[in-house]
């Protein structure tokens, strides 16, 4: 695996500069059922296609941001800071 990610603060960098936070997994807004809690904690969609995910610029500015990446090709379509996300 080797590709370039664009940190919204620092610009394009090798993927090895970053830490991966996994696909977006929103926290339940209200008290979840046991099943919902289990799914939130332990299940992921793991799509073959475009996925919205968290990344952190670990060896750089330290910012957490969103990326949209095609998991089949590692093509990164978009990166953005959470505050800039619609």
């Amino acid at each position, binding site marked *: 695996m*080797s590709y370039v990610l664009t940190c919204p603060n620092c610009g394009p960098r090798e993927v090895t500069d970053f830490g991966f936070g996994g696909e977006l997994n929103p*926290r339940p807004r209200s008290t979840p059922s046991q099943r919902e*809690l289990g799914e939130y*904690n332990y299940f992921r969609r793991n799509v073959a296609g475009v996925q919205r995910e*968290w990344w952190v610029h*670990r060896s750089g500015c330290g910012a957490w941001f969103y990326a949209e990446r095609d998991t089949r090709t590692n093509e990164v379509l978009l990166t953005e800071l959470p505050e800039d996300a619609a």
Partner: protein
Amino acid sequence: MSRLPEREGERIDRSRTLSFSFDGNEVSAYEGDTIGSALFAAGQRTFSRSFKYHRRRGLMCCAGQCPNCLVQVDDAPGVRACTEPVREGMKVVHMNASPSLELDLMSATDVVGGPFTPPGFYYKTFIRPRRLWPLYEKVLRSAAGLGRLRKSQPEREWRTEYRRRHADVLVVGGGAAGLSAAAAAAELGADVVLADEGPEPGGRLLAEGGRERARELTERARLAGVELLENAPALGAFDGLVPVWQGDTLHQVRAARIVYATGAIEQPLLFPGNDLPGVMLSGGALRLVELYAVKPGTRAVVAAVCDRGLDAALALLDAGVEIACVADLRPGGASGPAKLLLRRNVALMRGATVLEARGRGGLQGVVLGRPDAADGEGERAIGCDLLVVSGGSAPATSLLSQSGARTGYDTERGQFALTHVPSGAFAAGEVAGAGELASAELSGAVAGAEAAHALGFGDELSHTRAEEGRRTLARDHGRPAQAAVPPPVTSRRKGKCFACLCEDVTAKDIHLSVKEGYDSIELSKRYTTTTMGPCQGRMCQLPAVRLMAQETGTTLAEVGTTTARPPWHAVPMGVLAGRPFEPAKRSSIHGRHRELGANVLWAGDWRRAYDYGDPRGEALAVHEAAGLIDVSTLGKLIVRGPDAGELLDRLYPNRFSNLKVGRVRYGVIASDAGRITDDGTICRLDDDSFYVTTTSSGAGAIYEWFTWWLADWGLDVHITDVTQGLSAVNLAGPRAREIISTLTPLDCSAEGFTYLDGKRAEVAGVPCLILRIGFVGEVGYEIHCASAHGEHLWDALLDAGAGHGLRPFGLEPQRLLRLQKMHILIGQDTDSESNPFGAAMPWIVKLDKEQDFIGRWALERYAEEPPETSLVGFRMANGHVPTEGAVVMPVDGSPMGQVTSARHSPQLGGVIGMAWVPAALAKDGQRVTISDEGKKLQAEVVTTPFYDPDGEVLRS
């Protein structure tokens, strides 16, 4: 000597001679020679012994593509003699022959081995009797493999570096097409890197009459600003990253567009004896002549399928080699070079090829004839010491395939040609079917311009030119092929016919593998190991596919090719490993620990003082007088902002928004699954600021955890990681108060500075944050200051404590002291399954908090359902210290838990520890059995701290 008179453009410098040794004999060479050219000039014809049959092998490609000249150079095995430059004094020895290259006893396998060494012979021959396998293994291991690696290499004697290079365009291959592509792209303004595996760019131009043109193209590329990497083979294509190996550097080149101008590999022909020393590819023979002025033979026969071989025959004739006969597989037509050969009275056999090569110890003669003729009809036997073969070419598509290109069989040209090139990649020159010099240059210029255009460079004119060029290339490509396609094997005669030189796989072996059911090319590859040797399929892929098609009665298109995998070029492992790198973190006070004679050990990434030689005495000093420990490794965060309290309330199961300024509170961090991930103390510095410490190993992860949730929640908070910026020491013991009082204006009395206070004050003239906490169980002051002052603070405290019995103590005594207090170590006493209820800390979870917090839902469930296991203390009945991980069981029961920590405590006069046990056993006085490496030991459960259970000492 076979050195020719001085030639125009030769690579050697005859004014400078070098000398090196080969198998102990001194060999002289010129500057610019390769090991191969120098040895050949000195009369050496056998360069190696083959992998399995130990057959003699000589120079064949002279371009680093075949396995025939692998030698050991100094300590490095597997070096290609034909491309490795001679260095003064280098020690070259042969590989895979014993006792010598000329007399190799293992070559007996060539005579008797055939029937006994088919594919998979290890498994077929050495399987019975089973009990003899250890003996077989010993024999096989010594027989297998090439070269010798030094077993002990105390230190790396050479360094390697990675270099990351981002470019607009990378061009792989520096032949006519590659140079043109690089120049074209760079002239339009692109930042271009060109990687070429040879010592000078030019590719085929260098040995095939285009030296001047190569110089011009190289100069043009240089002037356009191309970064030229020489002696730099590309190793593979990984998601757009191309590693290029150049000496001690691995360039990791990432380019927005990549032009592959990797050329084509001249193919050998398949006939019995096709591996004899003296059988050379036409390109190899020409390189010897043109680059090194070495005569490849005295009397030669040439077998060709296209004009390339005929051109070579003419060039060899010019160099003074007698051409006994030229066999051209094409049945008719008189091409330009054929006419020239006839004019010079060279015998030309049309529709013929080589049926067999003969010789002992080297080539002595060949038999030429029509491949389809009945036995003996029209054959000619000719004596010669050189057979030049040119079996057509195979486009070098491996790197392109690795980046997603596809190939298909081109029946007319007899090769696997590109059918699809992925976006972002371009193919130019011979690999793209543009093999003639003019079209190779044009194809390069077009690809280079298109790559630059794709990135927004160029203008209207450059676009028009590129489009014109494309049309011309398409027209050229539409012309009929000028080559004949050789049959898989040109003779049914006796003798070994090698499909794969690296692994000694014969045509018969492929036949056998199909007969045994390995009838797909991928299976046959794995069974026979064809294409898996050092040449990576350069010499054997196409022949293997041809043989496979013949054996299975299918077409080459149906057989297809094997998957191309990296590395495309052999590379030392050390280059891939990069520079030996073992990062270590050291506290700013580390030098003092060394001076004090500390035993320094790894603790995660940190180098820490384990003890100062007397862990028991150090622990006792903390109880009886005072001790000082460096705790700079703690993670340290400043959490600041109007929402800082809110953030901490959401991140910890307990409350921090109500923590008073100047007070300290312990906190445990849990995940949303309710599992403990870290712990530490939090001090409120002012209304908006908190000082958070984490475990030493968790520092980085907790900083990321905090910032992650902050990014998600968008609270008005700033988090600063000050772990590296601050040093910290813990001064603890009954005399700690007296000691610190001498260094600070702060009121340190029991009433003025109470337990869990956090105050800012000068200590020894240095601004500090002092936390009154007690990890080790005695009155303690954790003092944090700027790293730059760490040593000063440490020295001042030790000086001040000299008269009070103060001693520095290390990690080991600290572990004992905290165990006496049952203070847990995250990761030691807890694991990824532990929750605060099981870890006997239900008080830390504040479910009555109004807002949500991480872990709340899971912890609510744990609160309702009592945990099945509990973390408890235990005291051993005797003095045995159980191993960490020893099994706990109820008396005469089955295993139910495990020991996490255990130490002998001189202070308490016994062995104590902590363990996970079934909840039902978590009561004081409960007897349990600990099974430790077969020994059954008795212990008693203790649920309150062993030392100072009520905390009176700590709070005093």
